[in-house]
Every structure is written in C-alpha cells, then in structure tokens.
C-alpha cells in the first residue's frame, strides 16, 4: 500500500494505491489519527487505485467514522471498483447514520464536502 495526503479546498484527501489489508491497516490508522488530531473533520479517501480491501482496512474506516461523528464530520470514499464497493456496502459503511458517502470521483466528493461546510 502506498499513500499520500493532498489538500483540496482545505479537505485532506488520502490517495491510496495497492492493497489495504490487516498488515498495512495500522499505517493507515496512524495517518488518519494524525489528520484528526490536527482537527480534520472531513476526510476523502481516494480508492481509485486500490485493488483490495479487507476487514482490517474496513475497521480503520469505521474507526475514523466513529471519531468524526461526534464532531459532525463526514467521510467521502471515491471508488468505482465494483468488487470493493460490494464489500463496503456489505458491511454497511454507507448510510445516513455513518455519514460516509460514496463518490465516483474526487470532484463529486469535494462538491459534497463543500455543501456540508456551507450547511453546517
């Protein structure tokens, strides 16, 4: 797994490529913790180049969601790979309660994040 963080419209975007499994999940967790410690309330995960995600990675996403919920935060997942989306839907990541939303590209995610900023 390779990962880098970019900021667009003040929203951190985690661009990840490769496989997110139990072995590399702690590295992703540390990165997210650092961003949340630095007061990030909105996160975008760009999974366009991710080809594998297991419950280790899913656990990290749920953890981020649980940390952001009390801050009225929001998570955007950018993903078009059907197999990945199927697994994420299966574990119930996307719903109003979790405030984790699926987008087909970064632009769409950032527009939604901006709207949320205006409303909230």
């Amino acid at each position: 797994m390779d990962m880098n963080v970019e900021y667009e419209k003040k929203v951190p975007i985690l661009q990840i490529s490769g496989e997110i499994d139990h072995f590399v999940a702690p590295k992703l967790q540390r990165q997210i913790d650092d961003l949340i410690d630095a007061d990030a309330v909105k996160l975008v995960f760009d999974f366009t180049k991710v080809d594998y995600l297991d419950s280790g990675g899913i656990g990290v996403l749920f953890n981020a969601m649980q940390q952001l919920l009390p801050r009225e935060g929001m998570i955007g997942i950018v993903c078009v790979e059907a197999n990945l989306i199927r697994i994420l839907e299966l574990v119930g990541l996307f719903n109003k309660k979790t405030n984790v939303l699926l987008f087909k590209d970064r632009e769409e995610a950032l527009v939604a994040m901006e709207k949320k900023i205006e409303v909230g």
Partner: protein
Amino acid sequence: MGSAQCQPLKLKITSRGDKLAGVRSHVGEIAEACGFAKQAVYDIKVAVGEAVANAVEHGSPKGEMNNVVIDFKCDKNDLKIKVVDEGIFKRTVPGPSDMADYRAHGILIMLALMDKVTINESDHGTTVLLAKCYRTDN
C-alpha cells in the same frame, strides 16, 4: 467450469502479517485455474484473506513461531479451502446484533462471499473451512 483434474494443494506459511499478500495472490491463481470467473475469484481471495489474517492475528499464540496451513481441494462441485492455525478461535459467528461491531466484519464477509463457512475449534488449533460452488452466473 469445475476442473476435476486440480491436484490438492497445500500452502504452509510462517504466521506473519507480511505473508498475507502472497497467500492472496496464490489463492487467486488457484481459483482462476479451477475455472472461476473474475468476481468469484475476487470473493475467494477476500474470504481466504480474512481467514488467514484471522489465523495470523488471533490463532498464533507464539507469533512467528506458529504456522498457518492452507489446503485447497478443487472438485466437480466446488473449491474447498481449509485454513488451519495453532490457536483457539475467540469469536463465534456473529448475529444481527453484532453488525455494529466492526471487528466482526471479517466473519460477516466470509459468510457473505462463500457458499459454506465452517469453523471448528480444537485444543490444537482452529480450522476454518470455506467452500465456493461453481455456478454459471459467476
């Protein structure tokens, strides 16, 4: 579909997290060789990946001193994969009330992606048996 000629295969790994990717890659190749279509190959990779990750994390009380054995058997009707560790399985199959517990996701994923999931515990270790049937739609 369903190549009956597949030879039984056995993979033995040292119980280490950095072995997971290699195991998944082997699993994918075997599932492809057995004739599964792309989506089913992915399902099998994820399900076996979960079982092996669980074995490494929870089924290896002596860490890298432990091994995980993965057995493949491909026959007329299905591909059976057996994952055997040297620890004691701590979690039972989750019920609906466990949906909120994200740590149970690994088992939920295995149950959703495979046709049969059996978990046997013994004093010597835990065996997870996964089976995927051949279908025309996968």
